[in-house]
């Protein structure tokens, strides 16, 4: 037991590694604040384009969405970070992560929002348009608020996945939480920082996992 605590929850090591983890934590927060809006924004554009009902456009959108859903995000990140320099495009780790994850997450957000918009009956469109709202205002004030409500659990679930996704940035040496924990582990010769990092992720995301469980159960109960 002593040995377990010594290795995994060593108070001394916790103190030394805390500043590293705090810095890493803020970088993770920064990444999330960049990647989530980018993904939602582009996803929204994809879903909005889908409502135009142009056949060739829809084919393109489906190809885009399926392509980026089929690529593992880590592969995309490695491709962007290690591949693009051969084209003369050198991105900082931060930009590479932002670009790769925007492509990946926007396809998921786009698919969710599209499903949400399709849930809204046509009558809502017609009613809104007949009051004199234009297409964009109809979307913004009538369709989207209802659509978002109808797919809220999926949006929350995907956002949770995006936050977890940022840990992959450690692979391209971006100093986020996991990367800083690995560095602290190297300095202290002790895996406590890794366990701490796992604990931080858990404490950060647990409320959302609980919330999601509640939402899912409620959705099932109302659907049946």
């Amino acid at each position, binding site marked *: 037991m002593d040995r377990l605590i010594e290795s995994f929850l060593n108070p001394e090591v916790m103190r030394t590694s805390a500043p590293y983890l705090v810095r890493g934590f803020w970088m993770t927060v920064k990444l999330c604040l960049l990647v989530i809006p980018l993904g939602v924004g582009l996803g929204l554009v994809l879903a909005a384009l889908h409502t135009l009902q142009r056949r060739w456009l829809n084919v393109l959108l489906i190809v885009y969405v399926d392509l980026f859903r089929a690529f593992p995000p880590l592969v995309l990140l490695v491709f962007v970070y290690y591949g693009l320099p051969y084209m003369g495009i050198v991105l900082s780790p931060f930009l590479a992560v932002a670009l790769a994850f925007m492509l990946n997450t926007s396809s998921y957000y786009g698919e969710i929002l599209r499903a949400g918009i399709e849930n809204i009956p046509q009558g809502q469109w017609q009613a809104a348009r007949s009051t004199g709202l234009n297409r964009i205002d109809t979307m913004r004030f009538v369709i989207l608020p209802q659509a978002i409500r109808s797919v809220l659990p999926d949006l929350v679930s995907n956002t949770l996945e995006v936050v977890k996704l940022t840990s992959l940035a450690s692979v391209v040496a971006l100093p986020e939480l996991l990367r800083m924990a690995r560095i602290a582990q190297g300095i202290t010769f002790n895996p406590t920082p890794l366990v701490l990092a796992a604990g931080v992720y858990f404490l950060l995301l647990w409320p959302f*996992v609980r919330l999601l469980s509640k939402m899912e159960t409620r959705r*099932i109960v109302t659907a049946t």
Partner: protein
Amino acid sequence: MIDSFFNLDVMARVLPAIISGMWVTLGLSILVITSGTVFGLALATLRALQYRVVNWFIVFFVDAFRAIPALVILMVVFFALPYVDVQLSGLVTAWLCLSLVLAAFCEEIFWTSILSVDKGQWEAARSTGFSFLQSLRYVVLPQAMRLALPPLTNRAIAIGKSTALASVVAVPEILNQASSAQAQTANASPLTLAAIAYLAIFLPLVVMSRWVESRFAWRH
């Protein structure tokens, strides 16, 4: 650009490595999906028995493995356990960690689907003399599957894609092979080839998941 991304010479040279990587990716995915789903179903069955203390443990396990990123779990198992003399190979680590993550998600999916089946179905099944397990197996689960199948398919694809994480602990799957080939050849073509390999495996599954989703969608 063609020279650095679609260099046929380089591609021909690294193709055998990428193909062997494909087998590892496929094998690991199948292993993880099988063990993860089975374990998830076992946990959901256990939860259906409604032992309060057991359920706390299950919910805690599920929540933890849904909240902590798979790569972090992988790192803890691979780099922390050796300090207490538990040394697992990269492959075993990846298999174990990804299975546990998938099991957590599957338990949640199975459980909510089982909840969706009307209580009367349970009672009717039990009253015909079926045991608990028989009721679950022959009456409740077949009805629950309709709701469970689309999210299960999506989760299975997601976990298959996350076998790319195993490259970080030196499992010679597609990404790992491609990265080392790219370093050796100083050319990005191995990465292009890896991208094609992943598409070859996962694009058909993504397209299939669309079909599953429309086929098993709830009709309102």
